């Protein structure tokens, strides 16, 4: 009965009446669209392109927004309110009529834009995707404007509230991300990005909520289910809030005390987050202190504005105290909850494969049939990792155990020669994945223990073959055609590389010299961990560096290096068809070989 009452018996005629009142708006809107989407491209001599349709859609958003603000403004002025509400139409019926009127207005503008878009030839963008995302935004935007109109008592605050409410899921995301950063600070091995990605991909599907998924993953019938669900929720809110609205508070910035509290907490939380890029390196305690101070300041100012008074009332102070208690509890609970996981190490026999490295962006394919795509490592399956060309998955049990041993050492302390960060991902036999992320910090008294654990691993043939197949896999070049070679010199003087040197260049001799250099480096290097975590593709751009380089290359004033680029036929070499090496005197054998080519 209640729902039946929410529709006035003359709704259709009231909507038509509302649309008649919008005659001027229709004219202005058509004129704006006609000029910007059709006339300007004609005048400038270019045909109508996707960009003009996008501009038109932005204008539609603006026009609908303005219209909603005007139409819902009757709730924000005592005179208008008394006139409208005193009529034999309930608050909800009035809101329904306003929503429907604006939906029709929006539909007409979108239809005009859509028809215009049908006359253009798309070159790089499916124009339909624009409508897939923006049409539900427009519809939900109208509902959001209605909610904001009910919650506020002033048209300017109503406009701001519409924007705030529409982007509320994104604000939540920012706050959640910030809280994950705090967890990252508290818990060793935890990474905010991993937590965030897991949360967003499994629980908080913001891509579905904003319909972006249907552009990225394709359109299907769930689109309509999601749209219907979102509208039902929004309408439910309109229904509840309308029944509770205190019309006598029209004229105040916000008429709902609950919303006032809610919004002041949300905005006050966003302020320190907005400033977090300035205070990014303040550490855990610094992060907490800045959050509390900036939150308190923002909270005070927001409430001073909302209450139009510099003196906060008791409830506002209580709410602040309550939030601070919640914040403190969050830190304590997060610390307690993560403590038990910080020291967790897998048993080697349960692990199918393990990845350790600084590279977290994986370019691969899920199956042989799927397309290549880039993903965060936290979203990648073991299969996806295995098919990646810039990832080494260690599957040998001894290697896995060696990595677990290094991991154990890292848990004990997070010091190193210099700052660096990397991920360890264990892929269990049962499909579970354990991610750990570490930031090692530069410490002058680092004892080299981590590198000692890694060195043994680095000198196994399994590691060498996987890590540097170009150097250590003698079959790697089998079937390859003669590569294209280029060499450049960088150093104290300008040296041109004679063509004869290129002609004399022999890949096999080059490899043999590299092998000698790397054999020596892998034994002598005391920055093995650093070498381990680098992407295998980095090898082709790498040179021994760190302490090792310093030891063997000193004194160096201006570094001399040869850049060697080797390009193989792509078919024969699959994806690894291009190598670029910077060969310095730190690679003595290889360096000497290239020097010998210059004679």
């Amino acid at each position, binding site marked *: 009965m209640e729902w039946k009452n929410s529709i006035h018996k003359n709704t259709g*005629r*009231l909507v038509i009446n509302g649309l008649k009142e919008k005659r001027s708006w229709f004219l202005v809107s058509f004129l704006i669209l006609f000029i910007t989407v059709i006339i300007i491209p004609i005048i400038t001599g270019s045909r109508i392109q996707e960009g003009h349709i996008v501009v038109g859609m932005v204008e539609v958003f603006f026009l609908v927004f303005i219209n909603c603000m005007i139409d819902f403004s009757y709730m924000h002025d005592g005179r208008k309110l008394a006139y409208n509400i*005193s009529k*034999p139409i309930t608050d909800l019926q009035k809101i329904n009529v306003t929503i429907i009127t604006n939906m029709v207005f929006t539909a007409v503008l979108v239809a005009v834009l859509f028809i215009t878009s049908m006359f253009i030839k798309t070159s790089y963008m499916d124009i339909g995707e624009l409508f897939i995302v923006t049409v539900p935004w427009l519809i939900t935007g109208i509902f959001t404007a209605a909610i904001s109109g009910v919650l506020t008592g002033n048209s300017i605050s109503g406009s701001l509230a519409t924007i705030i409410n529409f982007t509320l899921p994104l604000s939540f995301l920012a706050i959640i991300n910030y809280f994950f950063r705090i967890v990252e600070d508290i818990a060793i091995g935890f990474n905010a990005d991993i937590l965030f990605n897991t949360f967003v991909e499994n629980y908080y599907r913001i891509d579905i909520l904003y319909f972006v998924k249907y552009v990225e993953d394709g359109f299907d019938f769930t689109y309509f289910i999601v749209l219907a669900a979102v509208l039902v929720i929004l309408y439910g809110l309109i229904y509840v809030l309308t029944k509770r609205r*205190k019309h006598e508070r029209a004229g105040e910035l916000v008429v709902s005390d609950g919303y006032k509290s809610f919004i002041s907490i949300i905005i006050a939380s966003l302020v320190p987050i907005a400033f977090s890029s300035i205070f990014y390196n303040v550490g855990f305690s610094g992060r907490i202190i800045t959050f509390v101070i900036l939150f308190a300041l923002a909270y005070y100012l927001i409430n001073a504005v909302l209450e139009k008074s510099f003196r906060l009332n008791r409830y506002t102070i209580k709410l602040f105290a309550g939030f601070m208690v919640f914040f403190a509890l969050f830190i304590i609970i997060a610390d307690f909850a993560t403590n038990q996981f910080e020291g967790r190490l897998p048993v080697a026999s349960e692990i199918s494969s393990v990845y350790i490295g600084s590279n977290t962006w994986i370019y691969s394919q899920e199956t042989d049939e799927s397309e290549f795509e880039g993903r965060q490592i936290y979203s990648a399956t073991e299969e996806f990792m295995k098919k990646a060309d810039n990832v080494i998955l260690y599957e040998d049990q001894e290697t896995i155990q060696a990595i677990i041993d290094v991991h154990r050492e890292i848990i004990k302390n997070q010091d190193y020669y210099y700052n660096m960060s990397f991920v360890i991902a264990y892929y269990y036999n049962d499909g579970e994945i354990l991610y750990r992320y570490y930031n090692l910090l530069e410490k002058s008294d680092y004892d080299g223990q981590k590198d000692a654990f890694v060195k043994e691993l680095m000198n196994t043939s399994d590691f060498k073959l996987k890590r540097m197949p170009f150097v250590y896999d003698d079959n790697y070049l089998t079937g390859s055609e003669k590569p294209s070679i280029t060499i450049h010199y960088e150093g104290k003087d300008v040296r041109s590389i004679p063509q004869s040197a290129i002609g004399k260049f022999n890949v096999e001799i080059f490899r043999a010299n590299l092998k000698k250099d790397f054999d020596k480096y892998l034994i002598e290097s005391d920055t093995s961990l650093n070498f381990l975590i680098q992407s295998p593709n980095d090898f082709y751009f790498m040179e021994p560096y760190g302490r090792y380089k310093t030891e063997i290359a000193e004194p160096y004033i201006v570094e001399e290096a040869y850049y060697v680029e080797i390009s193989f036929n792509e078919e024969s070499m699959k994806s690894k068809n291009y190598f670029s090496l910077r060969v310095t005197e730190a690679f003595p054998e290889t360096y000497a070989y290239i020097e010998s080519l210059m004679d």
Partner: protein
Amino acid sequence: MLKVNLLNKSFRKFHVLKDININAEPGQIYGLVGSNGCGKTTLLKHIIQVFRQDSGEIHYNNNLITEKSEEIKDFYYVQDDLFFPQNSTLKSLYDFEKLLYTGMSLEKFDKLVKYFKIDINKKLNNMSKGQKRQAAFVLAMSANPKVLLLDEIVDGLDAVIRRKFWNVLIKEVIENNITVIISSHALKELDNICDKVGIMHEGAIIKEEEMESLKENLKRVQFAIDGEYEDVIDESYTIIKSIKVGSVYFVTLRGDVNAFRKSLENRYKLLIFDELAVNLEEIFITELGGAGYGMEELDS
């Protein structure tokens, strides 16, 4: 019958309506009078369901009035601070309100437009304050409401138009037996048309009575005596106020005037004694004075 029962409302910490009780009969013009800021408009907005009460009930013909009730569709409210939608004319507003009020009568609308000489195609927001009030009144009457709530409807109108207003209103009440609640400070005019009066002060109804009964209860006399008059306590009457202008005393009292006259005759040589007509303004001042309103002395 429109009945407001123990209605209470607080705006935050301010208790603006306190246990309000009102009883307005069909065919009755109910005058809602009171001090400035006493809550008259707030009460009317509660009756029309613009505001929601914290407690208490409003009934019409024994049916509870809520925002959704059928009966509220026969209520019409004309607010003090008039509002008309942008670019609206009386004609367009009539067409709009026709969609909301089932009893809207074009015949009555045309008749009243002619009577008040209003240009129905002129933008309402370009009209003078008085013209706007006439337009609002025409719409209200055209809707054929059973309960008409008028807030300061004659404020700013000239005497001729005011007379026209009252003529239309009284005719409507007589012919259609509607209930009118009218809030106004024009007490002299209400005096002539109201059947019942509710006097409000500081959010409460301090007196609600039929006009005739009010006037019967409250008496005003003027007299002159040989000597200086002093109030005495008597069971038959109660002196509310006495002032002396020249050698003539004016006394407002409740109770038996003859007993008061006899009391004077017993104590003094009575030179003149006349009973004066009591008007609403006098009643209003007397009642609010009893509540301590306007009793302050300038010097103090």
